[in-house]
């Protein structure tokens, strides 16, 4: 007798891998296993097809343990800690974000997420000068000039070009690619240069200077130099004419600006340029965001605490101070005494010294898969992977929330359930709670 196989096709599935957040995937499931994925790029496809590879197992001090025992051990560590850190939260969903913030509030933790080491400088720049921006839908329908600066969407956001910005046909861009001028500006040629009409190669560390030059030219000042950033001034004059002449321009930037010298000041200079251009035409800017759902965590943290990253709850109310409460600094200075890393591989991604401190303190890792962090964590709690084995909500790079589906089952609880259970156990250990271990308020 042959047993009939269960075959399902799940439509309109949202991909969790990058901030393009494609919501048109078709996932083919056979006997509870993902067999095929349609419409996704290779990165999205691999996210689903390899979701069972390298799965984490529940353990305490390297020994197998039940989920319940792991949650108890995690709650013990967090309830005892004096200056804990909750970090990660890129590869998960909105309800887990909310629970993580609730837990941080409860235990007086520092809470930070992957934005801190990707587009946090962009967030600081927006706090400083504001941003003229729009959704990807407007870009698709209206943009006739698209500039990618210090970004490589061809490799990091593969379907951005075909869904939103380059080849896609829109209401006022009916011919797609033919209706758009595409420019790539970077310190090196990448596959993104091949999508562009023009590639301008600038010297490393010259972005701020170039933005200032362009802004001066936009405002009618000419400069008494022959080149800026290794590029003849005439090329910058030509670019300004192209920008002013566009009907609807958008400048997308990447971590080429945020991770290099100048950091948020590079983005401040970019946003000022976009603002000045609005005296002549419609001109907008947007960061190319998102490994996973980093945008979601920044959104949720902002509407819950007022700040997008690097938040400290030790006084019982949120405080924000990059450089003090940001993860790389907290760890680099060796300040935190316990950490919960959830839905991100902190040790695999951090500067060596920061990773070293994490290895020296009680560490809890919540992750569907083994990683450099789970390898050394005292407590490992496997989770059902959001968008594959757990439902929820993710934010696209333009802040539009989209539903994540549960496509297959997992034997493990979701991030939000794990956090909820940790909260319950922490509370049970502190029956008199409400009284947070608040540091004394400064006088005056």
């Amino acid at each position, binding site marked *: 007798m042959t047993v009939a196989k269960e075959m399902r096709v799940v439509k309109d599935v949202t991909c969790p891998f990058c901030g393009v957040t494609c919501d048109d995937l078709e996932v083919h499931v056979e006997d509870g296993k993902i067999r095929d994925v349609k419409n996704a790029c290779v990165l999205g496809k691999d996210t689903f097809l390899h979701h069972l590879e390298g799965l984490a197992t529940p353990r305490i001090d390297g020994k197998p343990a039940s989920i319940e025992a792991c949650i108890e051990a995690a709650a013990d560590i967090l309830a005892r800690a004096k200056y804990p850190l909750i970090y990660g939260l890129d590869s998960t969903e909105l309800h887990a974000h909310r629970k993580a913030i609730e837990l941080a509030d409860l235990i007086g933790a520092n809470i930070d997420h992957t934005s801190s080491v990707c587009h946090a400088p962009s967030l600081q720049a927006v706090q400083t000068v504001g941003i003229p921006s729009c959704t990807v839908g407007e870009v698709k329908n209206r943009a006739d000039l698209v500039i990618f600066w210090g970004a490589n969407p061809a490799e990091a956001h593969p379907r951005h070009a075909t869904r939103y910005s380059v080849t896609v046909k829109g209401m006022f861009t009916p011919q797609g690619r033919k209706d758009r001028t595409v420019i790539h500006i970077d310190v*090196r040629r990448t596959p993104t240069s091949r999508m562009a009409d023009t590639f301008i190669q600038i010297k490393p560390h010259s972005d701020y200077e170039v933005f200032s030059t362009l802004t001066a030219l936009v405002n009618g000042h000419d400069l008494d130099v022959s080149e800026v950033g290794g590029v003849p001034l005439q090329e910058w004059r030509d670019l300004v004419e192209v920008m002013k002449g566009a009907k609807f321009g958008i400048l997308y930037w990447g971590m080429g600006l945020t991770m290099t010298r100048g950091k948020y000041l590079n983005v401040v200079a970019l946003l000022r340029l976009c603002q000045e251009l609005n005296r002549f035409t419609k001109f907008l800017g947007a960061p190319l965001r998102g490994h996973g759902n980093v945008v979601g965590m920044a959104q949720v943290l902002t509407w819950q605490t007022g700040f997008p*990253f690097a938040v400290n709850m030790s006084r019982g109310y949120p405080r924000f101070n990059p450089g003090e409460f940001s993860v790389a600094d907290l760890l680099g200075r060796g300040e935190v005494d316990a950490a919960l890393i959830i839905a991100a591989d902190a040790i695999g991604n951090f*500067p060596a010294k920061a990773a070293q401190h994490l290895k020296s303190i009680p560490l809890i890792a919540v992750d569907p898969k083994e990683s450099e962090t789970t390898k050394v964590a005292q407590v490992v709690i496997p989770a059902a992977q959001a968008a594959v084995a757990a439902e929820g909500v993710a934010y696209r790079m333009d802040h539009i929330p989209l539903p994540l589906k549960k496509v297959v089952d997992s034997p493990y609880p979701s991030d939000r359930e794990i956090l909820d259970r940790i909260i319950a156990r922490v509370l049970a250990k502190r029956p008199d709670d409400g009284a947070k271990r608040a540091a004394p308020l400064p006088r005056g």
Partner: protein
Amino acid sequence: MAKSFILITGRTTKQGRTIHLGKQAKDYIDEVSALEMNPADMEALQVKEGDRVRLRTDHGSSVVRCKKGTVPPGLLFIAYGQFVNALVGPDTQGTGMPNTKGIEVEVEKDDSG
């Protein structure tokens, strides 16, 4: 003889794909340990495609393999991963962001076998 360069890091399609295989997977390690260099710089350092070079900063050092790339002279590219993490310091100049791109590095041929 060591030479100074500026090192850029970033995502590559292959890094994004092989990360799903786990960070111990050979394909992943091959991708994140490949250093792109301008052919003229390779000649000056007397290294060939596939040769090992040592990268050094004030914060640490890494041994990686050379690969001919389209980067301009004086610039190097490597995908995000453990090899570059060893070179990055934790200082963020009060921004929260470590200097992850545009890192000044010393490069020399590694003959340690």
